């Protein structure tokens, strides 16, 4: 068990989330079951108030989770100094079996809670509260994701063992590794890059056409594709090392923490994109132009940042890696 102050901070907030989350979960069950905007019953008024409490709790959790997620990565990076063999968060995360799962949960939960809040805002725009039941039923589901993440967090810090020697990212993300992701290294760069920039072009086009369904699909596809492109291609230019494929190391100080910017623009852009599409699909009358715009700007910024590395490298050295 690691009992350093940063780990304690994360666990304490986790405990708080669990407490509030459970409370919200119980209330949500009642709301999802009994809420009826047309009812005159006293219970309905009580439920309306409780719905606001749950929404407040979810906002609290979400807005705290955002900085806490960054802090989690930062902490994992620090812990990598303690663990033999780990050079960055990748090694730390991989030092326990479910490390990547934990990471996935953390990101997915941020998306889920974010969508929930979008739905909530949408709901409060209409006097019939059309999505109230749906949104609390959804929270009942999301709660299990939250619980899973919190337990993973707990077991993660519990299982971290500073005496154990782990693989560093160099072996985790390499073509020779025996890991399950080896096959992706067989994807040739030209194909990968044309897919990456092609998807981005589609993104831009659909942004101007405000095509909700297409935009949704493009954004959903863009997340894994971008991560893949980061590992296989762009990362190597950030490190200027053709063999270094780690998607975590560029979060470190040596690379001016550029990873934070990269991931914030990627996740932020796709989040707004997916939200905008879902909202326009749900409510055909409006276009939610601001969300489309945020999505476009952030995604364009993401593409610009990652593209700048290989271009600058080529400009300076006259060759590709």
């Amino acid at each position, binding site marked *: 068990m690691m009992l350093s102050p940063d780990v304690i901070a994360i666990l304490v907030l986790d405990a708080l989330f669990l407490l509030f989350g459970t409370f919200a979960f119980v209330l949500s069950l009642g709301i999802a079951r009994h809420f009826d*905007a*047309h009812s*005159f019953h*006293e219970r309905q*008024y009580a439920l*309306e*108030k409780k719905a606001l409490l749950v929404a407040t709790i979810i906002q609290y959790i979400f807005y705290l989770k955002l900085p806490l997620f960054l802090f989690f990565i930062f902490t994992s990076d620090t812990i990598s100094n303690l663990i033999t063999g780990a050079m960055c968060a990748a090694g730390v995360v991989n030092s326990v079996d479910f490390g990547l799962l934990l990471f996935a949960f953390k990101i997915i939960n941020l998306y889920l809670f974010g969508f929930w809040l979008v739905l909530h805002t949408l709901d*409060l725009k209409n*006097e019939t*509260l059309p999505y109230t039941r749906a949104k609390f039923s959804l929270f009942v589901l999301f709660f299990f994701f939250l619980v899973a993440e919190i337990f993973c967090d707990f077991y993660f810090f519990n299982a971290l063992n500073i005496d154990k020697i782990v693989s560093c990212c160099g072996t985790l993300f390499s073509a020779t590794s025996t890991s399950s992701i080896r096959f992706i290294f067989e994807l040739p760069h030209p194909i990968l890059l044309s897919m990456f920039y092609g998807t981005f072009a589609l993104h831009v086009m659909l942004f101007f056409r405000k095509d909700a369904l297409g935009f949704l699909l493009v954004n959903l596809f863009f997340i894994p594709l971008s991560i893949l492109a980061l590992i296989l291609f762009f990362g190597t230019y950030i490190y200027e090392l053709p063999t270094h494929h780690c998607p975590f190391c560029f979060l470190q100080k040596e690379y001016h923490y550029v990873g934070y910017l990269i991931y914030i623009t990627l996740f932020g852009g796709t989040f707004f994109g997916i939200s905008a599409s879902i909202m326009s699909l749900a409510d055909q009358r409006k276009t939610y132009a601001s969300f489309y715009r945020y999505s476009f700007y952030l995604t364009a910024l993401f593409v610009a940042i990652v593209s700048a590395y290989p271009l600058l490298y080529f400009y300076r050295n006259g060759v590709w890696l």
Partner: protein
Amino acid sequence: MIHLNTVSKIFNAGAKNAFCALDAVSFEIKQGEVVLLKGASGSGKSTLLSLIAGLGKPTHGEIVVGGKHISKLPDHFAALFRRSSIGFIFQKFNLIPTLSVFENIIVPLIPSNIPEKELCSRANSLMHRFGIAEKRETLIKHLSGGEQQRVVICRALINNPRILLCDEPTANLDATLSYEFVQMMQTLKTEGKTIVIATHDSLFFDLPLIDRSIELSKGKQI
């Protein structure tokens, strides 16, 4: 403008201490009318006003104000409705004693976050109109009853409402101030505001200002 259809309000319904404060009240108030809501203390006048403003929900019946089904509106939207359409003048003034005159007047506009320029110009013109401009920075607790009454009216008008609801507006005023109040209502009437005055003050009976009276007794309309 205001439409009530067999509206009942039972407090603590179902419990032992259930109390029927309003019993099947129905009436209609047209735009620009000034209506007097008469009745002894405890007859349900305040309860009725708060239902019209959407502060509470009726146990039975339907309330439609300006085409909106107030009785069906969730709290979130009832507040928006009050913000846009209702001005409230309370019996006990209900000002925030530790805020200044200006601050009290702008309270209803705070959540709307409108530009400061517009906010100030609205508040200033109202303060000039009701003669309390020089008290702008004075705290409410240092004001006389008549001055407080004017602040209340300014606050009720700052959102430019179509409907003014007055609950015992003259209960804390002496005769001259009460008369002054009637004068002010008179000018507001000429501006086309719909006004409901709930009172048991005989001053209002048979005033030319009043278009119509509705009388309540123990929750029933007579």
